């Protein structure tokens, strides 16, 4: 996914001279072509994320469209105030590409887990938050960022992620996509959890439970309309995210459902990480499994809700 987006930014730079790339001390991999072709618009900065975001704001205020890439934790937490004030308050078209979203860097420990990134950025006015399911969706999404107003946070997954089946519809920021129909339950995913939801739906089907799967790559602005349309006919809704329980996808779904005031209450569960620091290493899959964020875990929780 990183390779896809970095190459994609290079392609955007060929199309549009406003595009500037800024790295904050990242790997040279996949960057040589951009650096060679557009040295003036290729900026490699040090480990100072506050400055990098402020710098990007200044470039954007001068008509540029900066794409910044560094590790997601540092690109969201270290420079949060620059994001809020310099980017969001001024509504500048800066794109924050966060590598290692969620638990990708599990073996590196808790300082490298970007699990509250979506939540802390979702509450800031003007910010758009996107997590694609796979590299192919990233390819569809990236061109839509070029002329999109305001800042965007783009959470990257591990890479080599299995591809979620796609019906050919174009990517629209702010739109959620129904990936599977079902009358009993609605599973809602973002980023790579959508694939887990689809696999869970297969397991549920074997039990005679038909679960719909809604893929919400844009966490903000959230597609309330799609969520409510697909939640209306089902008895249970389950949100699944690779992030903290408070403030992210589960909160967005809960807010929609709560305010919809359906005549018959929905059964509802948020599947996410607990309100705790995850003191594990190992692998992304091990952490996801520990907290039940597996197809089996999702299927089980959904079945429990319907029981």
């Amino acid at each position, binding site marked *: 996914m990183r390779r896809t987006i970095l190459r994609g930014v290079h392609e955007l730079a060929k199309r549009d001279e406003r595009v500037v790339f800024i790295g904050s001390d990242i790997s040279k991999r996949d960057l040589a072509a951009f650096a060679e072709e557009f040295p003036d618009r290729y900026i490699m900065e040090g480990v100072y994320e*506050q400055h990098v975001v402020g*710098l990007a704001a*200044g*470039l954007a205020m*001068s008509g540029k469209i900066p794409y910044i890439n560094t590790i997601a934790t540092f690109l969201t937490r270290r420079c949060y105030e620059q994001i809020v*004030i*310099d980017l969001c308050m*001024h509504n500048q078209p800066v794109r924050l590409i966060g590598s290692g979203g969620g638990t990708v860097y599990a073996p590196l420990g808790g300082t490298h887990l970007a699990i509250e990134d979506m939540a802390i950025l979702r509450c800031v006015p003007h910010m758009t938050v996107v997590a694609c399911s796979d590299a192919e969706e990233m390819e569809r999404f990236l061109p839509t960022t070029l002329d999109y107003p305001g800042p965007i946070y783009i959470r990257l997954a591990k890479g080599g992620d299995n591809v979620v089946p796609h019906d050919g519809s174009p990517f629209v920021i702010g739109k959620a996509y129904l990936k599977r129909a079902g009358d009993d339950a609605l599973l809602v995913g973002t980023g790579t959890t959508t694939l887990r939801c689809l696999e869970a739906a297969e397991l549920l089907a074997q039990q005679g439970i038909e679960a719909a799967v809604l893929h919400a790559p844009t966490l903000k602005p959230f597609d309330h309309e799609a969520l409510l349309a697909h939640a209306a006919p089902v008895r249970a809704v389950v949100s699944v995210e690779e992030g903290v329980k408070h403030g992210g996808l589960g909160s967005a779904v809960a807010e929609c459902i709560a305010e919809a005031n359906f005549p018959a209450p929905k059964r509802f569960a948020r599947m996410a990480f607990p309100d705790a620091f995850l003191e594990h290493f190992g692998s992304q899959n091990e952490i996801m499994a520990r907290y039940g964020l597996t197809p089996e875990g999702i299927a089980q929780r959904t079945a429990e809700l319907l029981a």
Partner: protein
Amino acid sequence: MASLDARSKALRRRILDMVRHSRRGHIASGFSLLEIVRVLYDEVLRYDPKNPSWDGRDRFVFSKGHGCMGLYVLLAEKGFFPDAELDKFCEFEALLGGHPEHFVPGVEAATGSLGHGLSIATGMALAARIDKKPHRVFALLGDGECAEGSVWEAAISAGKFGLSHLTAIVDRNRMQCYGSTEDIGPLEPFRSKWESFGWAVREVDGHDVAALREAFAALPLAPDRPSVLIASTVKGKGVPTMENNPDFHHTNKIGDEALDALYAELESQ
């Protein structure tokens, strides 16, 4: 330190007029930087008050946001917005509040959270270089603000890029909210800090209009480095009660009597 001429006193009176309405504000901070802003708008910056976003303008990032009364009296005088706006300072529906907002004509960036402006200015200067545009970029920082690590992040970066069309001005009044900068978070040796980050440095009396004029005229101080003017100033300059007095970092609920005393002290100087 230079004494104040009639124009500098008049600008300070206008700030006190603002406080007459708001009953609050960072008066002393505004007084500290007033000659710097005055010379910038009188003689240095290129701008068009009727078209504040004119692409050819010089950019002036007012990073020391809490000193904004000193900026606003100049912006009003130059015609960026009606002078009457000054008398609504901090009102609910006012254009002007206690820190600069990006929607105020003539303000490049909302500031007030310290340590943001030099990075933004560096980005603006880099964009000008990419686009081969001739405008210059200025950023005004407080010395207390220079405790923010992000200031030095920006200093590394701008030094690396060698942005000679970027100038930082530091309002070096040696005071911050609690007291002396050197007691709280020592900045000295301040000049050599900037030099070691790759900046060309000049020290100047920040209340001496002629000296400021000369310092700005000398820019860039080096052909391939950003410049910084360290302007020695007095916080609260022009009103002895306020000068170097931490009680006047931010004034709130000031009454007529106390305010009248500030006017009187200013006139007697």
